């Protein structure tokens, strides 16, 4: 059976959303109405997810992303040429998956001659977990650390950071970071250490990621050069001191 044909009206932009910043590989196609509010929180209920593919497998990003993109566009009843913009989660996230997602998004946009916008991947969780006033969103940063940010009524309060769970718990305990609940796969992983009530949004969702980009989408902002949020310097040591003896001395 042929895929249903989507009638594209002038009041609609189809957006390809890609996030590979966590163990979840997420790709989807989202309708953004042209009259959507430029505020992410207000826009989120106006967005429609036409297709979404998500797999939880940290080693599968590179294999799956482009396939998922093609399948999502097909399922949306659209063609690549119907896409109006690409939105990419730019982390923070462990490196290889994050890079693969960002490069995939940048190359898609470049090939299609459309804009690409980067959004903080934690916003894809925080925007969806707004049923408590102050929510700590944490993702797994590996190396026994979490990437985190605090959301107040769905809006991120400050830049994302990376900490060990015990250190983040100390900040919470001291009242330096205030939250009523927490969510995200990193929060779930270290739920005991962090000790807040757990909500159930583990990974970024495509609607929330698209919502995070609405300020750029609705204003038709120029395309961006995506800059991954690594939050850590590469592990590399400058060789120092004299080389060890090769004479067995």
């Amino acid at each position: 059976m042929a895929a249903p044909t989507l009638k594209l009206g002038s009041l609609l932009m189809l957006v390809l959303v890609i996030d590979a910043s966590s163990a979840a590989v997420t790709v989807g196609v989202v309708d953004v109405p042209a009259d959507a509010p430029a505020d992410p929180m207000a826009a989120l209920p106006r967005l429609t997810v036409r297709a979404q593919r998500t797999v939880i497998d940290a080693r599968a990003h590179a294999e799956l992303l482009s396939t998922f993109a093609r399948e999502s566009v097909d399922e949306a009843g659209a063609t690549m040429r119907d896409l109006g913009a690409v939105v990419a989660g730019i982390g923070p996230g462990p490196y290889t998956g994050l890079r693969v997602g960002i490069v995939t998004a940048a190359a898609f946009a470049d090939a299609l001659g459309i804009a690409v916008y980067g959004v903080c991947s934690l916003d894809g969780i925080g925007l969806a977990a707004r049923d408590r006033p102050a929510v700590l969103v944490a993702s797994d940063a590996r190396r026994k650390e979490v990437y985190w940010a605090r959301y107040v009524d769905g809006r991120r309060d400050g830049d994302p950071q990376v900490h060990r769970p015990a250190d983040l718990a100390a900040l919470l305990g001291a009242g330096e970071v205030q939250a009523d609940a927490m969510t995200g796969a990193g929060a779930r992983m270290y739920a005991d250490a962090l000790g807040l009530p757990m909500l159930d949004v583990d990974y970024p969702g495509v609607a929330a990621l698209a919502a995070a980009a609405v300020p750029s989408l609705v204003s038709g902002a120029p395309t961006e050069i995506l800059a991954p949020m690594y939050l850590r310097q590469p592990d590399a040591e400058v060789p120092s001191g004299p080389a060890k003896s090769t004479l067995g001395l």
Partner: protein
Amino acid sequence: MTLVLGIETSCDETGVGLVEDGVLLGDALSSSMLEHVRFGGVVPEIAARAHVQAIVPAVHEALAKAGATLADVGAIAVTAGPGLATALHVGVAAAKAYATALSVPLYAVHHLAGHAAADTLVHGPLPAKSVVLIVSGGHTSLLLVGDLVADPIVHLSDTVDDAAGEAFDKVARVLGLPYPGGPAIDAAAASGNASAVAFPRPLTGRNDPPLGFSFSGLKTAVARHVETLARAGAPVPVADIAASFQEAVADTLIRKAIAACRLHEVGTLVIVGGVAANSRVRALAQERCAAGGLELRVPPPRLCTDNGAMIAAIGDLLVRAKAAPATLTVPVRPSVQLRWADLEHPPQEL
């Protein structure tokens, strides 16, 4: 005719090339080499971060040089291995996205087959049979090559330890010369006496494998020589040591490459890879091939080191051979051995 866009990100060079029907139309290269200098070698994470920023601009620089647009591209070829996993992922992800968005076929190719194909861009198709010496910072191998995309590629030998280019880097460090060691040693050696120090020619003894390579011992021999001088308070003649070391490497490489030609009754030797840019390797190869009646093919230095043109070249050969494209789920293969140019669809066993 199909315009093939080639993408290479296996190490620290982001390379993009455009080839159509055996002709290089445009290419671009962005290197993160300077960022690795203070570490004395390529740091994979730094290389991968640089690829992310470089790849789209490199595609456009190559297109501009070729006077083409993305709409003209009919196929994408990408290095899927071997190389640094984290670096390979960037190029492969970009290639898959371009192929998907442009609805053109994707070819996942072997980096070393690309090196061999680079020569065809300058000297035309390879003969029915040739010996290819691939010598770089990551590889030192002798290959028996027929048709690059239709025939299996026979690995005659690989280094058992360091690659020749790695030995250049390590010896440069011992001599206080900058990274990368290849060009630094080549320059220092220019004013040195190549017979000042008789460094060993590794694996050239009667009972050694005739085509085998090993450079770790040679590197240690240089380090011991330098340390002995330094401990005695004697000056270290950097130019002489550089020249003598370079001579030992060039002598060993060319000796074995010519032995491979003799052993397999092949009349053409192709030398590719970063160390093929070394002036002494080139000169000695020329001298000995001429003396031995062998045809020598060495691409110009800019096509010897990693680049995107060579990947487009192998992609172009695959397209013209009507090879089956790769699937979008083709994985990166960081340590894959070279048996076929096309990593996902080897031709049928003969």
